């Protein structure tokens, strides 16, 4: 019964985080939701008795991809600032 409730919550949280990730107009929030989705997905794999995939999902799906996305976001932001700065000087 307890595990059933946990699984139900997990499914709801997965759907919610996936929807928030796709529907959010704020990029940094979308990236954070993507990482949350990856960690929840790792939990779901663990619940499905697939610990191998859970490990890979947590490390690659949530960790490395999340870091890459955050880095890309930072690069986009600094490029935008770099483009705006010369426009103000003349």
């Amino acid at each position, binding site marked *: 019964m307890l595990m059933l409730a946990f699984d139900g919550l997990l499914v709801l949280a997965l759907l919610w985080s996936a929807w928030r990730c796709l529907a959010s107009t704020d990029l940094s929030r979308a990236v954070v939701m993507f990482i949350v989705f990856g960690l929840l997905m790792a939990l779901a794999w663990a619940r499905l008795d697939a*610990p*191998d995939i859970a490990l890979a999902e947590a*490390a*690659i799906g949530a*960790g*490395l991809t999340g870091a*890459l996305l955050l880095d890309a976001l930072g*690069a986009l932001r*600094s490029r935008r600032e770099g483009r705006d700065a010369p426009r103000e000087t003349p």
Partner: protein
Amino acid sequence: MNRFTRGLAVAVGVALAATLVAALLELPAAAVYLPGAVAQHLAQSGVEHPVTAVLLNFRGWDTLLEVAVLLLALLTLLTLRGSEAPVAEVEAEPLLQGLARKALPLIILMAGYLFWAGAYRPGGAFQAGAVLAAGAVLLHLAGLLPAWAVPGRLLRLGLILGFLVFLAVAAGLLGQGALLQYPPALAGNLILLIEAGLTLSLGLVLAGLFLFVTGRQA
């Protein structure tokens, strides 16, 4: 997009999803019971964990190509990015640096454990490599490891070592008649050798996918 086209898109999507689910439900049961076949031949595979047995013995060919694809992705990335050195410097945060210094030995220990545990429980080269790569990314984010510019000779060797070891084992066993068919007596050691190379190389490749691009103003 107006409301009508949006509604149409949702309706088409729902219809497609329903068709796919219906088609999946009508699939006949698999003719071969694969888990049974794996369990039957597990004793000859050289490892005790069925996932590792499938990945590195029964379907080693797939894993070999998978590693090649990862290497190819890294090579493509190296050709696509500009040749100028990374510019952005990470400012040093003492708290983050202290945490990274404390965490790194644990990360390396964890990667070693995952690599070793792959023989008899969930784990293996891919997971261990991912943990190693995460350690490298953490070091970079803490400002302790600069982003990689052009890979030197040692780094290049490290990146391809796992693939070369895998390929050498595959070539050495060609005389057996089938690709990557290990003799049962040697299988455990060969898998351990391949996984050791793969752990190092996959760690470097995955870290490279981050460290070769970060801090660049393309």
